[in-house]
């Protein structure tokens, strides 16, 4: 084999193969896999060429008797039809979705066809001739088939029957004309540089044509998405929420379609890219509002980070998807991008800065001056729940904070109300009450810097107490709805709140452990050790602040709204109760039961019975069952136990429930006499006794 022939042969294969490699390299293989592109190349190189060869040499050549006539009439026609067959097959499949797919698959068929054709006609001519011929025929075949592919793409999206007929017809005729014109030109231009020029011309025209068609198709794709997304204009504000949900569903529809086109993995990236762009738009909008330098810098930093992530994703997405993306979501159409962002937000609120959008829509962003925001943020940061949240985030969140003053006894919320707001005291006090109006108990007093309703902000469960202003009160209020909006798209704030919650669980767990220890020590009668546990129960930072509520016996109920104070209260209770129990036991051991006042003057048997009743009351103030009681009275040496008890009932010292035959019968000392022997009173103040 001659070296020039070999070289020409190599060129004949290498140039088309180079184009295929380009498609692979640029990730241009569209909807399907790269294997679909190879199928097209293969068909062009074998089936299409064989069919054409057969018809050209066995049918048309004998018919016309002229190679030239065949080359400028029947040849191009049968070749284009043969190449088109695989595209006609593919257009019914899911991997052929739209114009871009058609262009790429058509291009591939043409390349395949030209490989075989080039090998067949490879001669011993000059290098420049071979180069120009290979390049020009390759480009011609590719462009012609791509034109038909594009037409098929149009056909796939056509809505009317007329269009469905016209597009394929137009496409195949266009391909044939292109082919014939090229062959005619080739016939009159005999090789050399001029053919190379023609080849370049064809390439350029083809590229412009394909490019134009793709842009047009993507514009239509964009329009289609816009229509899918668009919600009817002129809706009332009440319907807006419902429409937003609808918008979310429609976004999912569009993204589902993209997933069919580009695959799940790339669609996840497209979704993220859309979210990033929406957020960049939102943050740029934020920068135009009144905000401190600190907040603006935070926004700028975030924009920088998002840009970085975006360019990384763009590289991962590849040319084909990015071409699609840039055309369907063009940078200059900010309105459309924002609309899509809002809809995306309805579908997944954690990806888009929904709070910022809301502030923009509600026009609340510019109503508060920088100093106020900074003051509120500084106040909020004192609350445990916001301790780990950055100051600039709190400044931002403060736009949703409202300030309010209450007069003495004004109600902030009632027990059972939905917990939808956090209150932070700026000045004054809040009293938390539990129970009905005539029988309410003060649970806790909250002072400036303290917060009420932290947990409600997270879970929104009903209020477990009533909150009233004690004196003049000024508070910052933050609604749960706004907080949720703010936090959903800000993972670093979520992490800070998680840390707060984890600390809370640690504290309560410590209190549980302390309770177990306390119970064990009391069980063993180690009252000193038990009362020492009172000091270890509260967490360190709550005990030192001096904000712990005063510990008084009447505060026996507590609630989730006073959660923070619980360990402190428990600690106090442990100390106090341990010593009460200890004193009571000592009293029982040493002196039996003391009687005072008129009870002490009763006749001996009656006094003994009352002492028994009092001692029983220590273990159960509701009284004792009849049989048990009578046997104990007899044990103490009192004869006629039943009549002594009956006398006491008659003279009004003892009350009974149920008749003597009733198994639920119980006897106990009447309440008004109990105070005279109340163990608490007697033993808590021994000097009076």
């Amino acid at each position, binding site marked *: 084999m001659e070296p020039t022939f070999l070289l020409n042969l190599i060129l004949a294969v290498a140039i088309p193969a180079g184009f295929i490699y380009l498609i692979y390299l640029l990730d241009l293989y569209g909807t399907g896999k790269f294997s679909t592109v190879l199928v097209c190349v293969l068909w062009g190189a074998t089936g299409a060429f064989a069919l054409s060869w057969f018809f050209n040499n066995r049918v048309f050549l004998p018919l016309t008797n002229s190679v030239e006539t065949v080359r400028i009439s029947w040849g191009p026609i049968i070749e284009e039809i043969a190449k088109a067959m695989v595209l006609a097959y593919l257009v019914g499949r899911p991997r052929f979705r739209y114009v871009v797919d058609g262009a790429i698959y058509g291009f591939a068929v043409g390349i395949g066809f030209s490989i075989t054709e080039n090998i067949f006609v490879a001669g011993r001519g000059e290098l420049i001739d071979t180069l120009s011929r290979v390049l020009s025929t390759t480009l011609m075949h590719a462009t012609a088939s791509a034109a038909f592919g594009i037409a098929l793409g149009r056909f796939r999206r056509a809505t009317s029957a007329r269009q469905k007929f016209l597009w394929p017809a137009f496409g195949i005729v266009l391909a044939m004309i292109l082919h014939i014109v090229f062959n005619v030109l080739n016939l009159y231009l005999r090789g050399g540089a001029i053919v190379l020029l023609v080849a370049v011309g064809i390439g350029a025209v083809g590229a412009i044509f394909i490019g134009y068609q793709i842009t047009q198709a993507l514009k239509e794709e964009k329009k289609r998405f816009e229509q899918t997304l668009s919600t009817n204009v002129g809706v009332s504000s009440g319907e807006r929420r419902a429409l937003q949900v609808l918008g979310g569903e429609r976004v999912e529809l569009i993204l589902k379609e993209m997933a069919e086109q580009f695959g799940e993995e790339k669609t996840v990236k497209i979704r993220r890219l859309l979210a990033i762009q929406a957020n960049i738009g939102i943050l740029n909008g934020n920068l135009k509002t009144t905000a401190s330098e600190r907040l603006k810098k935070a926004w700028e930093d975030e924009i920088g980070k998002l840009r970085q992530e975006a360019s990384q994703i763009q590289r991962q997405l590849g040319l084909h998807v990015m071409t699609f993306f840039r055309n369907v979501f063009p940078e200059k159409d900010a309105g459309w991008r924002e609309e899509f962002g809002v809809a995306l937000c309805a579908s997944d609120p954690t990806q888009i800065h929904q709070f910022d959008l809301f502030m923009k829509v509600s026009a609340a962003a510019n109503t508060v001056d920088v100093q106020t925001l900074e003051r509120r943020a500084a106040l909020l940061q004192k609350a445990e729940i916001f301790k780990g949240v950055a100051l600039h985030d709190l400044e931002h969140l403060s736009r949703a904070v409202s300030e309010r003053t209450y007069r003495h006894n004004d109600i902030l919320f009632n027990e059972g109300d939905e917990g939808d707001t956090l209150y932070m005291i700026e000045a004054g006090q809040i009293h938390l009450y539990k129970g009905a109006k005539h029988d309410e108990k003060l649970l806790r007093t909250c002072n400036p810097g303290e917060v009420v309703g932290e947990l409600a902000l997270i*879970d929104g469960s009903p209020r477990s107490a009533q909150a009233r202003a004690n004196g003049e009160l000024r508070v910052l209020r933050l609604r749960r709805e706004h907080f949720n909006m703010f936090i959903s798209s800000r*993972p670093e704030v979520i992490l800070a709140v998680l840390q707060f919650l984890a600390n809370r669980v640690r504290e309560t767990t410590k209190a*549980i452990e302390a309770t*177990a220890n306390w119970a064990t020590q009391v069980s063993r009668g180690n009252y000193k050790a038990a009362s020492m546990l009172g000091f270890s129960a509260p967490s360190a930072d709550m005990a030192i602040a001096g904000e712990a509520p005063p510990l008084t016996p009447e505060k*026996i109920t507590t609630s989730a709204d006073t959660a923070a104070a619980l360990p402190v209260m*428990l600690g106090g209770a442990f100390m106090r109760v341990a010593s009460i129990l200890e004193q009571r036991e000592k009293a029982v051991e040493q002196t039996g039961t003391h009687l005072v006042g008129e009870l002490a003057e009763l006749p001996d048997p009656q006094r003994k019975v009352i002492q028994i009743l009092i001692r029983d009351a220590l273990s159960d103030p509701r009284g004792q069952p009849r049989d048990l009681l009578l046997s104990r009275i007899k044990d103490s040496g009192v004869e006629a136990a039943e009549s002594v008890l009956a006398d006491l009932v008659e003279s009004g010292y003892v009350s009974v429930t149920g008749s003597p035959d009733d198994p639920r019968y119980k006897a106990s000392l009447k309440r008004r006499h109990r105070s005279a022997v109340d163990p608490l009173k007697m033993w808590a103040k021994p000097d009076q006794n």
Partner: protein
Amino acid sequence: MSKPLIDQLQASRVFRNMPQSALEGLLKIMKSERYPAGQVLFKRGDPGDSLYLIVSGKIRIFTYDEAGNEITLSFLGESRIFGDFSVLDDQPRSASAQAAAPTECLILYRADFQAFIHANPVVGLAMMRNIAEQVRLITDFLSHVNNAVERLSQGELDQAVAELEPHHGDEELATLVNTFAEMVRQVRARQTAK
């Protein structure tokens, strides 16, 4: 093989009710580590920055008394989780952990966890609700403890026990209720000794 591990995560207090897909993602970022018997994983007071899920083997959790003697708190077996709150905050370890047998663990480091939450804020939000619910549960229980203790001081022993009775479910709380009831029995016995 990851099914029981996912179930275990799903049953844990921090990842409760989390969708399976999220937990699969979490398992993927956990790092596997093998410990020969006797190796100490961490000591009390060490900075805590990781959660452990036991794949196989046994872990001994222990601490020290005032004299410096080791006190074993518990043994944890296959598919148990410990140190879960360490991924949420940076508190030092409250106890030490040692492999009681050749043990394989999956470890979730705080930095990886935080990156995961950045990519999946939904998981963070769900965790927030989980833990808030737990805080409420324990707080509610503690308020009953508080009431019970006050009842005790009023001499209302039966009511004190009754105050804690409706609580169930949580193992730790149930143990405490039993301890409390036993304490009331002892107190009653002493107060009615004569």
